């Protein structure tokens, strides 16, 4: 690596100055040699995971606010002098959101790893040696 100094620019500036010398993206091939059926299965599995996360997120947000409306007792019960509903809204919800997001990411990664033709992404750009069985290509 030479010692040539380069101007580091912000991501926004790089975006602005990068322009259409990039190949038409949608026509690039899917990186791995794979058949469409497998890709479709992967897509549907990922969609299931995404739907599940969105459903849980909705349940958390709308459920908690609905509970505040339906159960005023949550405003009267206190923990360390702080009303329970306040505690839920200002403190408890954040680790819940974090946990939900982390669970989603782990599930999505498991879907990707579980697919027999695809390994973790680190090797995606390197040419892959032939798998245990020909994939038909």
């Amino acid at each position, binding site marked *: 690596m030479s010692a040539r100094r*380069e101007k*580091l620019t*912000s991501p926004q500036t790089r*975006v602005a100055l990068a322009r259409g010398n990039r190949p038409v*993206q949608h026509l690039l091939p899917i990186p*791995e040699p794979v058949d469409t059926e497998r890709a479709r299965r992967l897509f549907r599995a*990922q969609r299931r995971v*995404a739907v599940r996360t969105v459903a849980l997120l909705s349940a958390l947000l*709308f459920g908690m606010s609905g509970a505040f409306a339906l159960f005023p007792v949550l405003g009267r019960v206190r923990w360390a002098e702080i009303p329970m509903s306040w505690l839920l809204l*200002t403190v408890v919800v954040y680790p819940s959101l974090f946990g939900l997001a982390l669970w989603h990411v782990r599930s999505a990664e498991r879907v990707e790893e579980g697919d027999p033709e695809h390994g973790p992404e680190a090797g995606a750009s390197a040419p892959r040696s032939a798998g245990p069985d020909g994939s038909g290509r």
Partner: protein
Amino acid sequence: MISVLAIGLVLVTSLVIGVYGVRAARSASDFLVASRRVTPHWNAMAIAGEYLSAASMLGLAGLVLKNGVGAMWYAVGFTAGYVAVVALVAGPMRRSGAYTVPDFAEYRLGAPRLRKLCGLVVLVIMLLYLVPQFKGAGVVLSLVSGTPYWVGVVLAGVVVSGSIAAGGMRSATYVQAFHYVVKLAFIAVPAVYLVAVAGADTRAEALHPEWGTRFPETTPVEFTVGTRFHLEAPVTVTDASGAPVELAAGEHTVAAGTEYVFPAGAGVPHPAGLPELGGGQWRTPLLGTGGFALFETWSTLLAITLGCMGLPHVIMRFHTSATAHVARRVGVGVIALLGLFYLFPTVYGLLGRVLTPQLVLLRGTDTVAVVLPAEAAPGTAGTLLTALVAAGAFGAFLSTSSGLLLALAGGLSHDLFQGSVPRLRLAVAVGACVAVLMALPVEGIDINVLVVWAFTVAASTFCPLLVLGIWWRRLTLPGAAAGLVVGAVTATGAVGWSILAPTPPGWPAVLLAQPAAWTIPLAFTTMAVASRFTRPPDWAEHAVLRLHSP
């Protein structure tokens, strides 16, 4: 005075960092590769640092004081937005190689003209997001230095464009990461100190709003606008000339410029149009000043959670991750950092109700975070803390506005015209001017109202585009265009009407002020139905499948 010095220090430091700090940092033979090697931790901190804007630094505390604990739903929404980003958008967007949403639209649907329509939507969203930043800067500066509001706004605009022109364009990821630490420190340190120093009585009073709200000490209140308020009990105030004035219980109207001095222990008057300070609605953790608290909470949550992914400066950050795997994990990191930050604004609002309730009468609750330290901790400590919060808030506006202006100019440059450095500078300057001009008349509007407006537009336009584009193979170009137009017009129009023009009370007012509950489904439906009538190109399925293959 010391606050002004502190603000000046923050400005100078930012300029210096922008010009020199980055050059001293590293050398790399290929800065694209170098930025891809920035560790996810730095990236997450940079995203969080840029995302926390005036709404989070000042607006939240002010809204908690004015409307009650329910205002913290904004913070929950801001954070939940990243859960939606991680779940729906982060990975696939990274795989598409797109830098911006208009970029993604071209990848997915293939037409450069859609890109221009998207560019226009970007313009609307970013301006709506920039204006409250400048408003916040104007408010803070006028508070600490006594200059009129417009001076602060214009100064903020000049400083932001100046710092970008001087070298802010080279600000690297780690500078934004540093801003997260700064913002966290500036909101957390005074909050912790204030809670500790407030005393057990004040803390108990802050947690028991049902005990009533009173002036903690003799407080002069100068009504800057004509105000109608309601008194529970009669009180004797002193007017500007020192003569006592008997105010009976019941409704009163005072003209602009009237000054009353309220005695210590007097109940705080209840201004018309606001929830009673500490009353039932204030105590209930739901959003909404109308009678439809649950609907308003749900609609606002929808807007903020789904709008996050549509914010141009949010999505633009993910392409610096090396892979989709990393991009998702960065998003999770952002959630943790945001959650940590949002533990603190409540403190200012709760303590403010006890110690600075007069702010509600002045309609200037956005300033509570800056006013509170001096009230709660008199003497040098209070002055230092005020300087800390003021400087931190001003620094926050600077960093967020710079990021926003760059994203605005950069996105426009990338998507609407050919980019070049001088063009970029011009775009930044023009953008700043327009934002400053639009910020001047909005002193009376809450920061968060304006920010949520930006989110609503993003949620009604780019959210359906991204979600349907990534997860549905049958989205077509005419469908997307139709949905974008419908979403943009309804979201911008509805909120604009509710802010700028009188609205009939009751359900119409609520539906216009928080339109997300109907504009978002409308946009989705329009896109879906219009797509059904047209055929997607043959490569559409391939384009979608490619987004989900590692």
